[in-house]
């Protein structure tokens, strides 16, 4: 009987061994890249002449340090990391925009030449002209660009705005146009830096479908992003970079979690007393479990009603905060997670001094084992800002007689029928 859960490392191993069955689209072997940054940039002859010696002070910035990855054909691969972690540098090395110092990069098949959408768009030209010019820049012939023009415009849903200058476009329209051109490019390998967070929901859906089509057609896509949501939604595998080094490669959910940990100032896999966010404007005071309203428990029977609770105190006015609750098992896998913003739950506005209790009721279909509850409160902005997150704050034991061996025992029904 297999073990009920596996470690993240095993997951990563499994993911990469599954990947190894397919031919590699991108092979990166021991790539390093160092930027030499003069401490003071002398950009004129005079400065150069006045300070002939001082200009030799050079800071070396190791942007990539011995990075190796193999990305199989048809994979949607995410690269995540903080600002300055080297993810864009890696993408530029892959794209042949930067020259790697050491190591080798092999790309099988035709590589898309751009790493950002809308490169070369000119605000003073109309959408029509921009599409034709951009398509040529991206590698289509002029005739091919004209032939696909209608498809591009139809995909972008911009038929009425064809002769509008691009400077009069909204940023959403701009992105739609850029994306529409980009997906028409005949490339086996697409490299994309930060794109999916823009555009309205309907268009995002469309992009998502388009990515699926590209993947189904055997295209390989490498996406660099800060947005863990798109990593979890789109990627088959992801890689976490930090200070130019590969921290981890594996399942997107696992990488997204590792990213969040590293982003809030903690080392990965350090599990003692984890608290993220500065808890200055909102604070998770407590978290507990209830069987019925007001009845606190730390043990429940499988199948019982179960309510996850947290108490939050506000030290500043916060509009529409995000409340989140995550239940993880002993090996650290998130078994159940919910948050108000994903669910579209209005969370309200709070003033300094407000104390509230947040409850999430469910039926306990967790398999008999021990679980940890992570409550958190955050705030939306350009990205989600975690105000307070207290990892594994409360322990829950689920008791039960039968354990099927799965991580959850979702309610289910058997049906066996003879044909």
């Amino acid at each position, binding site marked *: 009987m297999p073990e009920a859960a596996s470690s993240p490392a095993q997951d990563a191993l499994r993911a990469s061994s599954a990947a190894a069955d397919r*031919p*590699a689209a991108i*092979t990166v072997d021991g790539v390093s890249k160092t*930027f030499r940054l003069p401490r003071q940039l002398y*950009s*004129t*002859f*005079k400065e*150069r002449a006045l300070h002939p010696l001082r200009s030799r002070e050079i800071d070396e910035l190791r942007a990539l340090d011995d990075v190796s990855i193999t990305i199989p054909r048809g994979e949607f691969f995410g690269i995540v990391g903080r600002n300055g972690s080297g993810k864009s540098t890696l993408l*530029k*090395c*892959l*794209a*042949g*925009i*930067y*020259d*790697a110092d050491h190591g*080798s*990069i*092999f*790309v*099988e*098949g*035709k*590589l898309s*030449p*751009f*790493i*950002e959408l809308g*490169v*070369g768009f*000119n605000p*003073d*030209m109309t959408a029509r*002209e921009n599409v034709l*010019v951009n398509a*040529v*820049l991206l*590698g289509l*012939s*002029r005739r091919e660009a004209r032939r696909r023009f209608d498809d591009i415009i139809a995909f972008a849903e911009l038929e009425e705005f064809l002769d509008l200058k691009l400077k009069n476009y909204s940023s959403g329209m701009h992105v739609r146009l850029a994306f529409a051109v980009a997906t028409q490019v005949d490339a086996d390998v697409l490299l994309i830096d930060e794109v999916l967070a823009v555009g309205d929901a309907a268009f995002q859906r469309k992009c998502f479908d388009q990515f699926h089509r590209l993947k189904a057609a055997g295209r390989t896509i490498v996406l660099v992003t800060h947005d863990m949501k798109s990593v979890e939604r789109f990627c088959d595998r992801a890689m976490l970079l930090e200070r130019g080094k590969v921290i981890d490669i594996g399942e997107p959910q696992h990488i997204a979690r590792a990213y969040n940990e590293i982003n809030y100032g903690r080392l990965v896999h350090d599990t003692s007393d984890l608290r993220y966010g500065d808890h200055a404007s909102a604070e998770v005071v407590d978290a507990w479990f209830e069987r019925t309203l007001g009845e606190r428990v730390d043990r429940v029977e499988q199948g019982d009603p179960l309510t996850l609770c947290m108490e939050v105190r506000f030290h500043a006015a916060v509009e529409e905060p995000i409340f989140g609750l995550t239940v993880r098992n002993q090996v650290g896998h998130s078994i159940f997670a919910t948050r108000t913003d994903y669910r579209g739950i209005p969370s309200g506005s709070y003033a300094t001094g407000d104390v509230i209790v947040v409850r999430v009721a469910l039926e306990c279909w967790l398999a008999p084992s021990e679980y940890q509850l992570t409550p958190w409160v955050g705030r939306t902005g350009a990205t989600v800002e975690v105000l307070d997150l207290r990892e594994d704050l409360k322990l829950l034991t689920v008791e039960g007689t039968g354990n099927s061996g799965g991580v959850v025992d979702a309610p289910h029904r058997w049906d066996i029928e003879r044909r």
Partner: protein
Amino acid sequence: MTTVPAGQRPQLIGDDARRFWSLVWTLAATEWKLRFYGSVLGYLWSLARPFAFFGVIYVVFTEIAKIGADIPNYGVYVLFSMVLFQFFGEATGGAVTSLVARENLLRKMRFPRLVIPLSTVTTALMNLGMTLVAVFLFAVISGVYPDWSWLQLPVLIALLGTLATGTGMILAPLYVRYRDVQPVWDVATQILFYASPILYVATMVPEDFRQAYMCNPIAAVLTQLRHAVIDPAAPTAAEVIGGTGWLLIPLAVTVVMLALGAGVFSREAPRIAENL
């Protein structure tokens, strides 16, 4: 299936010639179109500069300084040589800042780096073509009629274009490192303007210096232009420099500039994106 290194280094020229030229053309045409965009008199404005300057020069040198008075068709010569020099100045001056101006493309897209300065020279060439239409008109009105020898003009323009390309390839990556390349080149262009037979003709240069003077490829091109296009009675470049063999010197200067440019540019190409 073989794994091929897909040129995972920044490219100088690239392996796809068709893409290379299509990029050069597209960038040049876009730039050129944008220049006339939104201005009703777009083309006329592009003529205004050389013609206005020409008008001033013509009056000053024929009526006041009396230099051009004894040169047959002096006006047509000044206009022609000025327009050609303007092409050289525009191509090189544009090439200087071209890499920095196209920073966004260079940092976000993989394409042969050489496309950028070449497209600048191409834009200048397109402008020259447009301006020449008006210049030809002026020539015919002034009594200079087309002749078979006008066929030398494309060759002369090609030589000038080659010189501009070589110079641009040296200057563009230098400007990425040192921003004072631009003012320096501005001054250099001005010196070149007076060191070339534009307001005067090469035969007016004292005989002792004439050979050295003609080593300047622009001087050689413009002198030949005078013979081939404006005044068949004027001496050819070979005659002024003192023999056809001597013409190898300005030609060599052009070739050396091109080779030097190719060397500098290919050395810098892989690092252009990160130095921007």
